[in-house]
């Protein structure tokens, strides 16, 4: 009986602590400023999620003026999406090599969260597989300083992994950019990720009215 009570108390205590922790790491509840400096001993790294087709095109357009000399880049693409992989390689070629020779890029393939037209019954399983792929991407090439995504499903999985790492004290920053095609309403991934990313960027001013955390900097793509 005593053991049962102790167990129950410990369990409740864990739940309470977890809720407090979640409250502290979810940007919607507890916004935190970006780091003012980066640890020079460890080379900073960015993870760029290529969502496929239009998502990939927009993402690479967003990064078209990136310097190859500031941080390592990891491009994550969904399995079978050779279009995105090829685009990323062409993009890096156009960017040119790092002048200092310190920084480079990698491509990582993850399982799809959901194929177009896939049954919603099997979607949870493919999402789990995708989640596992995201976790592996965080192990190798490593935990990024910042994750940038613009949808679709795999972006939700990747941000979930970011939050998991945050829960245990790692500080990965997250940026979500809503598509240029979204004028008045957010996409499903946008709605889902709105509370969970540090920076939520939209490309049409009207979206700021309802989604007050959103930042509008003009058309970016």
């Amino acid at each position, binding site marked *: 009986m005593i053991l049962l009570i102790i167990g129950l108390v410990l369990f409740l205590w864990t739940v309470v602590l977890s809720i407090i922790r979640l409250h502290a790491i979810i940007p919607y509840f507890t916004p935190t400023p*970006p*780091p*003012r*400096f*980066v640890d020079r001993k460890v080379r*900073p790294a*960015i993870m760029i999620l290529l969502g496929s*087709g*239009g998502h990939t*095109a*927009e993402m690479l*357009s*967003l*990064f*078209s*003026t*990136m*310097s190859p000399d*500031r*941080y390592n880049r990891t491009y994550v693409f969904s399995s079978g999406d050779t279009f995105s992989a090829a685009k990323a390689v062409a993009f890096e070629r156009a960017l040119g090599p790092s002048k200092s020779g310190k920084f480079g890029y990698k491509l990582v393939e993850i399982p799809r969260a959901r194929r177009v037209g896939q049954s919603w019954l099997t979607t949870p399983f493919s999402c789990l597989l995708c989640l596992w792929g995201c976790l592996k991407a965080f192990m190798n090439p490593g935990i990024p*300083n*910042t994750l*940038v995504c613009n949808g679709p499903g795999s972006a939700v999985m990747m941000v979930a992994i970011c939050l998991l790492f945050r829960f245990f004290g790692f500080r990965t*920053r997250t*940026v979500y*950019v809503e*598509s*240029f*095609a*979204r*004028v*008045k*309403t957010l*996409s499903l991934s946008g709605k889902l990720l709105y509370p969970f990313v*540090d*920076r939520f*960027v939209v490309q*049409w001013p009207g979206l700021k009215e309802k989604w007050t955390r959103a*930042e509008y*900097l*003009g*058309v*970016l*793509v």
Partner: protein
Amino acid sequence: MTPRPSKVAFVTVGATAPFDDLIAASLSSTVIATLSSLGYTDLRIQFGTGRQVFEQRLSATIGSRHSVSVSGFDFAESIREEIAAADLVISHAGSGSILDALRYQKILIVVPNESLMDNHQKELSEELERQGYLIEGHVEDLQNAIYKAEKAEFTHFPENGSKKFIKLVDEEMGVLSLD
């Protein structure tokens, strides 16, 4: 290589969804007569999965083509070269094609695909028309949209905003202090 100056109209239905109505409308005798009367010499059509419609309508226009030469292809790695070579772009409402056409400062008519469920495409073309960047057209009266577009004064579309975005990313990375 033709000696006379060419004037090209380029129609694109995109890569994701079929849009046979737009192919048929572009090859209707009224649209071809309109293009001809406005001095167009070439009509290029990216027809996607609509090869059958393209070929049927093309053979139906023989004899009434008014010196407009018509050609087409299904898909391309990039349609940017096609857009760059065109004077007028008639596009489905996909944001990628719209952006490309606006950046090349082409006369642009966007025809929303009414058979598609998500209406956010329509929101985009409506808003861009309201701001004077393009003309919205419909498959039933494409010729009117072409006349309207030829006469219209378009607003200059803003440049790519990547620099502003990279500043935000650098801030998040903590490398802004390197500037």
